């Protein structure tokens, strides 16, 4: 219960800060919009081509907006050494990680909802027929990405070239998430039977669980000098 209370306290704080600042979500949504917009003009896809391109397009937009989000998330903590303030409080460091990860997950989810809506309009594509499965895949992929992005965001926050370090550190680790998410999304949007892409969904779920637990246990060492 204590851990849950701390997680909620940190999550609520991030939401309040973002509500007043509005910098993280705005930059993530604008960047994603740009990706969708430019892809449309670069490829001008027809109906079938849209179905082929959309999974990759969506996860590219999510990936790069995530980098912006994770960097901004820890920029706020770095500004006045607020992460250190949490580090010297009598809380489990893993709870700090979970609170930050939950906030990043919400920011990513909001951005993704915006991107999906925009893509459906721009590419004249309806996600409704496969909404349930597509929603599950998006959730698991986002969770996996957020678990990795949050811990590497904290690691790179105190480095000199943090904007470069974060993608350099996190993308090699997050590659399985994107491959699995793109493959599973392709299957879901094409209306294929679940069994044809279930293994990719299992990969996303397994990755999320493993990295969530690992990050929770290792976050203490990220906070130390």
């Amino acid at each position, binding site marked *: 219960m204590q851990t849950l209370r701390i997680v909620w306290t940190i999550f609520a704080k991030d939401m309040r800060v973002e509500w007043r600042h509005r910098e993280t979500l705005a930059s993530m949504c604008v960047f994603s919009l740009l990706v969708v917009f430019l892809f449309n003009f670069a490829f001008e896809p027809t109906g079938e081509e849209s179905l082929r391109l959309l999974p990759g397009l969506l996860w590219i937009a999510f990936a790069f907006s995530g980098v912006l989000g994770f960097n901004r998330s820890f920029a706020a903590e770095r500004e*006045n050494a607020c992460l*250190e303030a949490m580090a010297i409080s009598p809380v489990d460091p893993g709870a700090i990680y979970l609170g930050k990860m939950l906030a990043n997950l919400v920011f990513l989810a909001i951005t993704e909802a915006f991107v999906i809506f925009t893509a459906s309009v721009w590419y004249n594509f309806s996600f409704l027929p496969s909404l349930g499965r597509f929603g599950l895949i998006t959730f698991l992929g986002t969770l996996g990405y957020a678990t990795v992005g949050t811990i590497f965001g904290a690691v790179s926050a105190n480095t000199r070239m943090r904007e470069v370090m974060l993608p350099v550190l996190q993308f090699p680790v997050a590659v399985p998430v994107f491959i699995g998410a793109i493959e599973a999304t392709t299957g879901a949007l094409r209306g294929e039977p679940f069994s044809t892409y279930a293994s990719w969904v299992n990969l996303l779920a397994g990755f999320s669980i493993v990295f969530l637990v690992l990050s929770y246990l290792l976050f203490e060492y990220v906070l*130390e*000098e």
Partner: protein
Amino acid sequence: MPPGISRAEATLELRGVSKYFGDLPALRNVSLRIERGDSVFIYGPNGAGKTTLLRTLATLARPSEGSVFFAGEDLHHNAAVRRAAIGFVSHATFLYGELTARENLRFMGRLFNLPELEKKIDSVLELFSLRERADELVRGLSRGLQQRVTLARAFLHDPTFLLLDEPFTGLDAASRENLENILRRLPEQRRALVFSTHDFDQGIALSKRLVALEAGQVRYDGPLSLAPLDALRISRRH
């Protein structure tokens, strides 16, 4: 206080602590014991290791060699619990600019799981004369006011050990005098004060014990009255 430890047992102790940043030794074989009621002035030139010493006591820096003990047990064992007894003020404010002073205190108070939190917040706001500005965003406050909020945050959970790294930074004359009065009362409240300041006269007025650091080593640790100021090359013109 952490559960299972009474205030009577509370001591903070460095034993043979060295801290390296790469090849650079910030602290070298430092041994120091802080007990309740102590008021310790950490003094030294720039780069002497004062900040590293305070950060190590505050559990923000893990020693490269040696250990830090709290009530006789390794501080980093079950550190989360022991941190409840420590209040730390750093060069940074530890405050979120997009939250008000009151919201910042409420956030920290929830992390410390403080009972009667709103009452405690009102109390520290009153202590540091912040009531009228409590509901303004921190980013709109002057550096001096932010420093007062930072101090309020450090005092909020009623810590046994106050570790203050240049706490007078940015304070006006009235605020400095108020803080000096607060710090003078700490020993009689059986709390320990460990602080650094570049104002030597201010430091000796507030403490009974001097720890002089130079190049990461303790050159003197003892009563101020016995400190060999000439040998330590400490000039009162600071």
